[in-house]
């Protein structure tokens, strides 16, 4: 049972998921939910704090991003030791984070279609669950060898015409900025080592469960997230180099 001392306040202008996030974070920081412990299941959090499942999922995912929690498939969500330092607010240009900068690619289009969000995609894209999403999947090769599987998810209402665009020859960023006048003002990147699925292994020509570099990127235009991109890369092809500058 969760001991409820603080609750969300619907009269506050602050979003509910941010209020819930603060409550959970305080419990973790106070040691009430220690490192390694499992946090209550979604339904329990909904019941105790009187919020929807979506609010709980947004708050939990954000805490996962911030390094407070870790989700384990089929087991639950656990408090983890934070490895992400806070307080260093840096800025860098997008191209430096793309990893592909300066490398000549050939691209094969695997899919350019529409789907509804499943799993955590609605939370990742910060959209309602019943939103149509444009799905673009490309395989990029370097010197004839498959190197990156890139899946891009764009809420359909952001740029409906993207469905008909040539995304083999054109980069999505250039299309957004130069053709549709959608300026990308921020990117949040998450990089981790993962293991390739059967499908990914086949496309990349790797044995199943091979270590791969997983890059997840969230692209923003102002307050709106316009795209979530998931790239699975052969690790030996990439060396990550990012230059940071302290914000003025």
């Amino acid at each position: 049972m969760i001991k409820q001392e603080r609750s969300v306040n619907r009269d506050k202008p602050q979003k509910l998921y941010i209020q819930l996030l603060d409550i959970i974070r305080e419990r973790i920081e106070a040691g009430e939910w220690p490192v390694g412990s499992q946090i209550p299941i979604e339904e329990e959090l909904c019941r105790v704090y009187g919020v929807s499942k979506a609010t709980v999922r947004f708050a939990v995912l954000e805490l996962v991003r911030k390094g407070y929690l870790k989700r384990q498939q089929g087991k639950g969500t656990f408090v983890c030791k934070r490895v992400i330092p806070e307080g260093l607010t840096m800025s860098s240009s997008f191209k430096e984070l793309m990893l592909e900068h300066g490398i000549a690619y050939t691209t094969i289009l695997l899919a350019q279609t529409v789907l509804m969000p499943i799993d955590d995609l609605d939370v990742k894209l910060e959209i309602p669950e019943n939103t149509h999403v444009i799905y673009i999947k490309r395989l990029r090769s370097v010197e004839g060898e498959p190197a990156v599987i890139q899946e891009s998810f764009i809420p359909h209402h952001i740029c409906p015409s993207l469905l008909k665009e040539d995304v083999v020859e054109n980069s999505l960023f250039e299309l957004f900025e130069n053709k549709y006048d959608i300026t990308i003002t921020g990117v949040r990147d998450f990089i981790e080592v993962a293991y390739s699925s059967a499908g990914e292994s086949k496309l990349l020509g790797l044995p199943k469960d091979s270590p791969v570099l997983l890059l997840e990127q969230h692209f923003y235009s102002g307050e709106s997230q316009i795209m979530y991109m998931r790239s699975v890369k052969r690790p030996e092809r990439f060396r990550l180099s990012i230059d940071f500058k302290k914000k003025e």
Partner: protein
Amino acid sequence: MAGTKTVKDLMVGVFDFPHIPYWFTIRQAIGIIRVSFLSTKKYPQPMAILVFDEKYNLLGTLGLKDILRGLEPRFLRPTTKAQVHAEDESGLSVLWDTPFDTESKKNAERPVSEVMTSTKFFVKPEDPITKAAYLMVHNDLALLPVLEDKKKFVGLIRMIEIFDELSTAILAE
């Protein structure tokens, strides 16, 4: 006069319906049906999902009946050799209970392409609505895709709008 109306006059938008690619599982489609229709208490006619390929070509539609058929345990399906009388459903409730937890849950992992109603019939925007009505009645369909130049998917026409139009004309005459 209903006869002068064409498909484009009654056509509804493609994005009025949820979209999925053919590789989604029945389980994932059920989740989408629940989110898009059941949880919103909106019950559009027909309650269907559109199924597309990688190039956004329409492959078929997936309705509640298709999903239930896809979940059905194999032994409940009639075969030509052991065809039972349509009214003979003795023991069905007993048979359904246990297998629903086992074989049906396994069936929920099948791709929707195996259970959807494939798109075999379509109409053009300039076709009369009576043509759409004919195709729907004779092929047991509640929804027809509207294709321009036999290729470009521009909308859908539903039984409910056709019925409304034709029945209004009948009552007026």
